[in-house]
């Protein structure tokens, strides 16, 4: 793309971009789009795409291929969209190499094949009408409002023209035409709160930094996304990196920053690569660098790659890390707005917060604040995972209730199992029980329920997950990630973990439970940063809702979910086993012993309790079972 020297030329660039978009999608050649975010790739999207390409070119058919980001329907990945000339773009799910073959055939004979079609994508259909319902009618997408995700899965993230054709950088042009104060006012009107976890009002934060004295100010995009279970920032970075860059430009202009940083975790190699591509494109087009769009506004962005420390998502630790130090948080005040990176005024925002900004400036703060409830305005992206039929990434208006999110959008719990609850807020959050799912996705309501909205991760658990083991799991995480600077977190997480291990191994007493609660309170009130202060949350919330389950472990040495490996075992009923050997083959660690046609035994020392043997044992025998607690001795 040529350098765009002033805002009026952006219109020309858009017209040009639209024309080439049309020639790509409305031409006389078939077009195949593949969802190539990390989720798609890990589900094996490369294979059907490449197969399709080689099958079609073998037949001499030169189709066009576009890699897009993630539409959020991760449960049915790999996703391929196919558009035949003169027909609408159709999205297919779970595309195996076999389906790819039959889809390739249907392209060759140009027939309408709708077997595994998830829906038509009107945005990519060039006005062609479809007999297949629109993808936006899909139960997972129907009640979504996509603002931060508006381009994800629709555009090629490595093509700046696609972004511009869909209205990209228009908000930047608008921004530089008004005063920084007016931009801040618009963001305040929108009611946008930080999506990184703390939910601090974005406009207010910008104002602090704008008013702070300093000749040089920095802007940081927090793309550290360390919360296990969260993948919204990854999806946005991989699917629409220019939205984040444009958001940063708007923020930088409003605050008066000249240098920006994107701190992205190293575990996201694809996001890092796409960001690099996008930054270069933005520089070449004149959106970044000196005298942006001829306005006299200068701003540049550097990528900083994280090095694997969860605590570096905390803002002061992140800054220490950029400075080349051990990533340890420090006390606030001074707040970053006054003394942040290299002691200069610094504003830090999350990826999703930034990705919302172009639309807010484009359509106005009022428009954005029309979504949501109470003090939670706009939309929130949520990462659905765990025991749910449709794991994936969604964006809904704030205020939608959790039940609707899990059951209507996420399709409920698979395998006919009961929903036990949902974990929100990651290791600083907690488990909201199934009985309490009628509360809205709202910062205050979720906090009242004992958890936090956090970054938006939602992991659904079913009856097979033990709540005590889960609390132990979280504490193991925070204990490992504790930076060690403050004593309550360093020692407290270790103590809590030790007590939880005792409980899950059936070695704890009621006194231990009381001690756990006391330590939890101390860690919560005494820790330096959110990592420590939030770490007791999974314990306290689970005690609030699931106390009997703790007691079961302590008093009866029994794990009701049969999940705590210290309290469970697999065994073969000698009277039922016919010695067919199927379990021996299925066992990944060779823990099953016995002669052919004679009853087998499980070597408890070797057994990893994966349950593969139970699945392998023919239903007519059903000789293998998992047991827990007191039953163990009887067996």
């Amino acid at each position: 793309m040529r350098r765009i020297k002033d805002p009026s030329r952006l219109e020309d660039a858009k017209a040009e971009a639209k024309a080439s978009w049309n020639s790509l999608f409305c031409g006389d050649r078939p077009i195949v789009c593949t969802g190539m975010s990390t989720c798609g790739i890990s589900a094996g999207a490369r294979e059907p795409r490449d197969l399709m390409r080689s099958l079609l070119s073998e037949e001499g058919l030169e189709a066009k291929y576009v890699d897009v980001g993630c539409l959020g329907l991760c449960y049915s990945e790999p996703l391929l969209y196919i558009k035949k000339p003169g027909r609408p773009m159709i999205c297919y799910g779970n595309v195996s190499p076999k389906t790819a073959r039959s889809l390739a055939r249907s392209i060759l004979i140009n027939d309408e094949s709708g077997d595994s079609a998830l829906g038509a994508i009107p945005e990519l259909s060039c006005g062609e009408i479809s007999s297949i319902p629109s993808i936006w009618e899909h139960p997972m997408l129907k009640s979504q409002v996509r603002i931060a995700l508006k381009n994800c899965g629709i555009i090629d993230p490595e093509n700046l023209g696609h972004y511009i054709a869909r209205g990209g950088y228009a908000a930047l042009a608008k921004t530089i035409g008004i005063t920084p104060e007016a931009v801040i006012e618009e963001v305040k009107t929108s009611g946008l709160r930080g999506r990184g976890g703390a939910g601090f009002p974005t406009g207010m934060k910008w104002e602090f930094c704008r008013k702070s004295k300093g000749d040089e100010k920095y802007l940081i995009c927090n793309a550290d996304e360390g919360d296990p279970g969260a993948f919204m920032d990854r999806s946005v970075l991989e699917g629409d990196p220019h939205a984040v860059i444009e958001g940063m430009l708007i923020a930088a202009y409003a605050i008066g920053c000249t240098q920006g940083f994107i701190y992205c975790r190293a575990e996201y190699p694809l996001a890092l690569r796409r960001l690099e591509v996008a930054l270069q494109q933005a520089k070449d087009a004149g959106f970044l660098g000196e005298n942006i769009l001829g306005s006299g506004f200068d701003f540049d962005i550097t990528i900083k790659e994280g090095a694997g420390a969860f605590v570096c998502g905390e803002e002061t630790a992140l800054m220490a890390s950029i400075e080349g130090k051990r990533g340890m948080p420090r006390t606030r005040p001074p707040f970053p707005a006054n003394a942040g990176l290299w002691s200069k005024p610094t504003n830090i925002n999350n990826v999703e917060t930034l990705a919302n900004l172009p639309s807010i400036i484009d359509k106005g703060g009022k428009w954005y604040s029309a979504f949501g409830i109470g003090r939670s305005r706009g939309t929130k992206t949520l990462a659905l995972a765990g025991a749910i039929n449709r794991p994936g990434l969604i964006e809904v208006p704030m205020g939608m209730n959790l039940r609707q999110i899990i059951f209507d959008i996420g399709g409920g719990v698979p395998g006919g199992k009961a929903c036990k609850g949902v974990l929100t807020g990651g290791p600083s959050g907690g488990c909201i029980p199934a009985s309490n799912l009628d509360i809205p996705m709202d910062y205050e309501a979720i906090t009242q329920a004992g958890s936090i909205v956090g970054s938006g991760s939602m992991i659904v658990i079913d009856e097979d997950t033990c709540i005590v083991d889960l609390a132990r799991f979280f504490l193991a995480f925070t204990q490992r990630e504790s930076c060690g600077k403050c004593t309550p977190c360093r020692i407290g997480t270790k103590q809590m973990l030790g007590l939880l291990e005792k409980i899950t191994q059936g070695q704890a007493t009621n006194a231990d439970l009381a001690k756990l609660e006391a330590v939890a309170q101390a860690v919560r009130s005494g820790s330096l940063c959110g990592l420590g202060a939030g770490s007791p949350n999974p314990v306290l919330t689970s005690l609030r809702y699931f106390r009997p389950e703790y007691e079961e472990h302590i008093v009866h040495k029994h794990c009701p979910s049969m999940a705590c490996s210290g309290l469970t075992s697999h065994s073969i009923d000698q009277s039922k086993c016919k010695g067919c050997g199927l379990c021996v083959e299925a066992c990944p660690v060779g823990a099953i012993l016995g002669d052919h046609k004679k009853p087998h035994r499980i070597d408890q020392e070797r057994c990893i309790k994966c349950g593969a043997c139970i699945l392998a044992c023919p239903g007519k025998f059903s000789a293998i079972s998992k047991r827990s607690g007191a039953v163990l001795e009887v067996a």
Partner: protein
Amino acid sequence: MINSSAQKTDAECFTVPQHTTIMGITMDDKVKDLMGSLGRGRGSLIPLLQRVQSEFGYLPRETVAAISDALVISESEVYGVATFYSEFKLKKPGEHTFKVCMGTSCYVSGGGTLLSQIIRRLGVRPGETTSDGKYSLDAVACLGCCSQSPTVVLDDVIHGNVTPSTLESMISELENGSEAL
């Protein structure tokens, strides 16, 4: 040559005799090379460590003096930073590295079983390398791919929806592959 460091603790790796050459190449030159356009400020320490690691697969002891000289930071501070971040390895990793996701979603979907399976099958614990230098195992927290839980990364390729049996075929493919050589 680089010492075999599989059995050493991190601290020991940092106190082995200070060679400053690896296979005849002076580390001062190598590090200068890797510095490229990085500035000499403290802020370059982590990017430089990352470049050294991507060159060697870990941070060889032999490079530390050169890093410390290049950035005018004491060796102990370099050590402090290198040990704080889990990305940095002070020991040479195996030929193949398994990273098993132990993030929440993968944990509740059976990631723990996959981890135990590798531990038993290959006789290697998280953070370690087999004594023949063939396999390393890491337990990592969330690869951001939770919709495909449980996930395993084998030599930088991410696999989703891994089951004990697909993991077993990944392992045996490696084992048979290396037998054939």
